[in-house]
Structure formats: C-alpha cells, structure tokens
C-alpha cells in the first residue's frame, strides 16, 4: 500500500467519524494529512479540503445542518460500482460508509434512511451553498491560496 492509499485510508476513518457524529478536530486532520496533502495532486488536495469543510460543519452546524450533511455524504459515498442493497438490512441507525458503498442512494433514499424529510430539497441547496463556501475557505487556509481554487472556479470537465 503506497502513501496515497494510506492517506486515503486515514481520510476514510475521518469520513466515517463525521458520519457517525464524532467529527475529527482540525489538529487531528492537520497532523495526519496536511503535510502530505500540500505536496499531493489536486484531487488529493480537494479531498482534504472537502473533508475539513465537512468536519467544520459537523462541529459547528445546527442539528438540521448536520443531518443534511450526513444525508449528502450518504449520497456521495454510495456512488460507484452498483451492488444489491442487502447490507442495509442490518443497519440500525446511521450506517458506516462501507455499508452504503455502491448502493447509489438518492437524496430521497438517504433522507429516509436518516429519518429526515425526504422532500426538503431546499435543505440540500442550503447545505451545498454552505459547504461550497466552507470548501473554498479551507482551500485558502490549507494551501495558501488567494482564492478558493477549484471550489470557486470549478474544475474543467475531464
């Protein structure tokens, strides 16, 4: 396992903790990830900034915002290779990320899973606006940028 994969695993521990309402502190994340991220490729830096932004919201947001953040995370992390939703049979409460990988949950599915209002799509927009701003701030703070980097300017389509 190379350094990039090790850092991926470290971030995954932090992602899971955010989802489980035990968000890591800034010092924990900086201690393990910042030095690596500063010299890493742009995708790694973006992952770090997004992680920090999510942790920031998980620390300081209202209960509703935190729940919406978890819903959004379930949607993001459930993407990718499809698999049958059998792992959800055993889920009682907030799932771990490994339990939702590949399930391709929609906002509606995820909101129902976390017992939120599945039809409140404005909540989704509010969260994304807040998160985008937080990502830009974290990017500036972590990578000494004058701007919020790709989170403000957008990434060119591959």
């Amino acid at each position, binding site marked *: 396992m190379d350094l990039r994969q090790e850092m991926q695993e470290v971030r995954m521990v932090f992602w899971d903790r955010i989802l489980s309402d035990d968000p890591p502190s800034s010092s924990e994340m900086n201690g393990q990830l910042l030095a690596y991220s500063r010299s890493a490729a742009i995708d790694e830096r973006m992952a770090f900034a997004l992680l920090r932004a999510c942790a920031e919201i998980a620390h300081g947001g209202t209960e509703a915002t935190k729940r919406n953040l978890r819903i959004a995370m379930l949607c*993001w992390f459930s993407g990718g290779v499809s698999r049958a939703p059998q792992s959800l049979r055993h889920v009682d409460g907030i799932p771990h990320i490994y339990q939702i990988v590949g399930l391709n949950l929609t906002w509606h599915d995820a909101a129902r899973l976390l017992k939120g209002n599945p039809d409140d799509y404005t909540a989704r927009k509010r969260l994304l606006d807040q*998160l985008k701003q937080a990502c830009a701030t974290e990017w500036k703070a972590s990578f000494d940028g004058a701007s919020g980097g790709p989170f403000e300017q957008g990434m060119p389509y591959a």
Partner: protein
Amino acid sequence: MPRENGEPFEAMTARIARREVAEVSYREHPTLEMLLGLLDGNASAEPRDTCAAHLALCPACRSKLENVQGSLSTEMRRLKDSPALGTLPAFLVERHGVRRANALGEVLGQAAVRLRRLLQPLPAAVLATSVALIAAICVLGPPAYREWKAGARLPVRSAGESGVQVKEFVLVGVMPQDLSAARPESLVQAIDAVAGSDDVRAAATFGRAAATILGLLRSAGAPLEHPSVTFKGIRSYTVQPGDTWESIAQQELEDAALWSLVLLLNRAATDKTGEPPVPGMMIALPRRSDGV
C-alpha cells in the same frame, strides 16, 4: 463569488467521494474476530474505525462481512426457533449436568494430552491406523477401554453405548468447522459424541464450534445463561503465572465450576486442550450481568 466555469460543485463532491472509496490493494485484512468485534460494537474506537475504513475500501472484506452477517442472522433465527436447545452453557448443564460438563472438559484434556504424546512422533498413515484401531477397540468394548474411561472419570457406559459413540465420533470428524456451516444441531451431536470420544481432532473441532456458537451469541447480544448467573458480553483477562482454568474461573467469575465454560470460550484461541493457560496470554471471559 466567481462564476463557475466547469464542473458543478455537487458533481465535484460526488466525484471526490467516489474516488475516496476506490478500492485499495491490501496485504493484510481484518480477522474474523475483528469483523465480529465491529458487529458486536464491543471493539474499542481505534480498531473499530480502522476496520470500518478498511471495509469501505475493500470489496472482498465487505463481502465476507455480509456473509458473516447473513450466517449470524440465520443462526439466531434457528436458535430463536429452537427454545429447547437454549444457549450452549445452559445446554451443557442441562444435558450433561455441571459435573458431567466438567468431566467433559477433563476428559477432553486428558485424552488430548495422552494422545498427543502418544501419536505426535508418528507419520499420518500410522496415526490413521491408530485411530482406526482405537475405534475398533471402542466398538468391541474391551475392559481396558472401559478402564481408561473410568480413569478419565466419565460415567460408566456399556460396550454397546461406546459403539454408538464411535459412530458419532466419526460424524464429529467431518463436522463443518466454518462459520457459515456450523449449526447448533451439529454442535449438539458434537458435544454428545466428544463426551465419549478420545480424539484430539474431535476435541479441537468441538472447541472451535463451541467458540463459534458463543461468538454468534455474543455478536447478537444474547445473554449466556447459567443456572445461577447470566452472562452479558465478553471481557478480556491476561493470564498470570500460576493460573489454571479453575483458578481463573474462581478468581474472576467467583465460581470455580465455570472453568469448563472459560476453557470452551478460549479453546479456539489456545488449541491446547486441557493444558493450563499460558501466562501473558489474553483470554476471553464472560462478563456477568451482576458486574463480576
């Protein structure tokens, strides 16, 4: 805020997350115990978090965990549907009695030690012949065999009864050992058969199966029953110099008669049938509901 000229933010976050859960090539994977610990909720924070992170990045382990969960659900349904069977310790007590349960542990130990000393230096073919010979002797029920059994403090049995046990002992030898295939019914057969058999492999099989069932019960949070106390969960204990299974049971569970339960719980880990626990080794102990 500057205008976006590329990928929208939401698509960006989803892309980052997909990349975050991309498969990682691992050299080491969590053990079955670690996976059970994760399901159990008893694992401490760091190994639990690391294990969960590993699972997010490793499809093979996710699949293994799902299989374990599936087996666990099936086993728990079976146990629930079999009220007469009860949990393993209760079953041991009910079916063999506490003294018989203790005698069972004792005979396993003595038989294993005797046979190991006797058979270890011999090649496999000679071992197989020896086992066949012992089986033949048991079927015929000669006085020497009964004498040996009396020495092991098992209840006296008739020659005919021994024959039945030998057949069962063969069944034990082929009893499935993996988690998905272990069934309470087969464990019952194993307990009955091993109570009258003198084979190391059978003893080890029995120990593993017992530990498996106890593990399933533990993972499902089912309390382990005993006539006088109820056990809830598992705790660890580091073996001290001079400890025996009996002294550990007395000291830690306040009941020396529970030594066979302690041995059963740890048989799979130690695989040293009947021998005293090794100082420094960490063993599992049931946690009593009254806090002991």
